[in-house]
């Protein structure tokens, strides 16, 4: 059996979940739709992170009650394996969406003469060995990259700070409560996958308590970071202006003039985001691969990991196409993608409540 799970502790778990939540919460957004009528995204991000945390706590509680060491155990039996498939797809999509944002930003600001294919292949060249190295490696990498992640967050805000204006947040609550609620629901696609991925790999964590704790601490940390980033974006641009930007986070680093720090610091920040982002994408992809292995009984994760890494990169590449059917699909994923997580997890939780404690 070669699932490459390894052993990791609370700090590694929390780092992996935290980085993934930060990256997804910052980049996995449909910018055009989210900000078109104003900005409530920073509030919805905070609310979505808390809602996601509540749901994941509930899921962790169900796993504890039933004595399951990971999500694969909870999904075993009955329709469980079937319910795992949308979860696998959701985790792959959770990885593909930040990859898409990085590819767009790199094409726009770094490799100005390249098209998306070599850029995505370039990213895949790092993603693939990361996924194949296994969860212990990904989790330890996440711990190592906490500092670059924090640096990316801090530098982005620092570079944009001269352009911050409170008036950019006004009119407050312009899109209305229904938009806030829609965005909070949509945020579940950003904040449920980090927890789900760790629950899938829970067997490698040193104790079930640490798995649940890792999700809680990581999501609080990553959710707070993502909220801070969204608030920073809100302070830098008016919502409708932001809706026209392809990569608002990178535009944010260039919103203010930085003559003294040098014009190219924004490029450095972009690469810090790409480095931390790729570990988050690897975490999701490994989680999806492990879940697929668990429910299908495949004992070697390498072919599955390679396949799903290719799928994540392929989806990111597909989403760069401007064709209307593709863009409709992308819009659907951003709006309703959370259902891929919510429906199966709801059914599993319902079943576990009906069955009560014990497996």
């Amino acid at each position, binding site marked *: 059996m070669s699932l490459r799970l390894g052993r990791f502790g609370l700090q590694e778990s929390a780092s992996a979940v935290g980085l993934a939540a930060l990256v997804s919460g910052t980049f996995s957004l449909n910018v055009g739709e989210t900000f078109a*009528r*104003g900005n409530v995204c920073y509030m919805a991000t905070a609310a979505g992170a808390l809602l996601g945390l509540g749901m994941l706590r509930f899921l962790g509680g169900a796993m504890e009650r039933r004595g399951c060491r990971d999500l694969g155990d909870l999904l075993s039996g009955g329709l469980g394996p079937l319910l795992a498939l949308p979860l696998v797809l959701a985790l792959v999509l959770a990885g593909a969406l930040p990859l898409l944002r990085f590819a767009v930003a790199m094409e*726009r*600001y*770094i*490799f*100005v*003469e*390249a098209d998306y294919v*070599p*850029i995505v292949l*370039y990213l895949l060249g*790092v993603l693939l*060995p*990361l996924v194949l*190295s296994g969860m212990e*490696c990904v989790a*330890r*990498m996440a711990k*190592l*990259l906490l500092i670059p992640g924090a640096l990316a967050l801090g530098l982005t805000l620092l570079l944009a700070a001269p*352009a911050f*204006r409170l*008036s950019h947040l*006004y*009119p*407050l*609550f*312009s*899109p*209305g409560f229904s938009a806030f609620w829609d965005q909070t629901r949509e945020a579940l696609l950003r904040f449920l996958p980090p927890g789900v991925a760790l629950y899938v790999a829970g067997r490698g964590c040193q104790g079930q308590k640490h798995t649940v704790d890792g999700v809680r601490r990581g999501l609080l940390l990553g959710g707070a970071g993502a909220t801070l980033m969204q608030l920073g974006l809100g302070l830098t*641009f*008016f*919502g*409708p*202006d932001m809706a026209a930007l*392809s990569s608002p986070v990178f*535009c944010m680093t*260039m*919103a*203010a*003039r*930085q*003559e*003294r720090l040098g*014009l190219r610091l924004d490029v450095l920040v972009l*690469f810090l985001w*790409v*480095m931390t982002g*790729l570990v988050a994408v690897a975490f999701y992809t490994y989680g999806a691969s492990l879940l697929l292995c668990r429910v299908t009984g495949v004992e070697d994760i390498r072919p599955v990991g390679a396949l799903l890494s290719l799928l994540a990169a392929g989806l990111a590449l597909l989403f760069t196409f401007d064709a209307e059917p593709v863009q409709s699909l992308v819009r659907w994923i951003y709006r309703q993608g959370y259902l891929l997580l919510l429906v199966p997890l709801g059914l599993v939780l319902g079943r576990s409540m009906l069955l009560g404690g014990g497996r």
Partner: protein
Amino acid sequence: MKRAIPLVLLLSLLCGCLRGVPLDRYCYVLDIGVERGNTLPYRFVFLLNQDTAGQGEAEADRGQVSMVSAEERSLFAAVDALSGALPAQLSFERTTLLVFSRELAEAGEIEAVTEGALSRLKIRQNVWVMVVKGDMRSALSGLVSPGDPSMNRLKANVTLFEENYGYVEDWGLSGMREAFHTHTEDALLPYAALTGGALEEDMAAGQPYPYLGGGLLGEGQLKTTLSGSAVFAGDRMVGVLSGQHTMLVLMAKGTFRAGHVSLPWGEGTIDLALYALNRPKRSWSKGRFGCEVFLEADLEDPTRLDVDARELIDAVQGYLAAEMDRVFRATARAGADVFGVGREAIRAFHSWEEWAAFGSTGWLRDVEATFTVRVKLSHSPHDPALE
């Protein structure tokens, strides 16, 4: 951990080039000037630096800068037209300055020129923007000196000019585009012109010697001089403000740091150095805009021992408040919200639709503005800053 470290090193390889490109394959566009064309709508003037192998970005300062131009309907078309006439490919990666002619700015055509082309040409959002009066080639040539052919030091000087004197405000492309259509603040772009022109009065008038680009009574190395601001109402330039009046606007907006003022005093004037003390307190309530500015002043003339400190404070407070009010009325009459009153007014609205409807009604003309200036005299007439 053993596996993680090599992978971190592998990640760092991402910070390289995707494929090797000889440096001399590119002509780097450092600055772009746009003015009205004779045959086609626009003439685009490009200041170029062509790298040779091994030469870096900083080498642009040592020469190799040339100027080319093309008349076309859009910036993108001009680049296409020039591609066949240059030995290397144009690259906009190092573009740091966009200059628009006053004529285009007054016709409200800046947005039309820049829209679309800037993102397609991958021009960065934080490039400098400026308005110049007169022929673009001459104006750009006037900004280039033998010691600074790429104008890098001149650009850095704009920042210093803003920080030490407040005679210009430093605007980037993204801020300008935001100002063009959000109604929350209008643009106040740096203004330059060829020297030797007639002294020009600005919108607020009343200055015996307005510090305005082209009209400065000094002779330096550059034939084009920069001072004062081009005032916009939405995307259309509606006038100019002298350096002294620009400084008053910056004080009220909270972007002022340091400057000088010549205060009318008896038959003559008294020179004071001014520094920002705190951010101004700005308020908005039902059509009334209030602005309280906090400054520190140093008396620069040690010979004026006859002046009473309290009298001086009252005089400078009254003078600055009255001048701010005058500049506000002059710009508001032209529909230009250079004081950023909209940034306060928008807080009273509940949706973008409501704000957009209000913002386009010419509301600024009916605003009642009150300016209050609080000055702390750090060096009294008996303890002047200069001994």
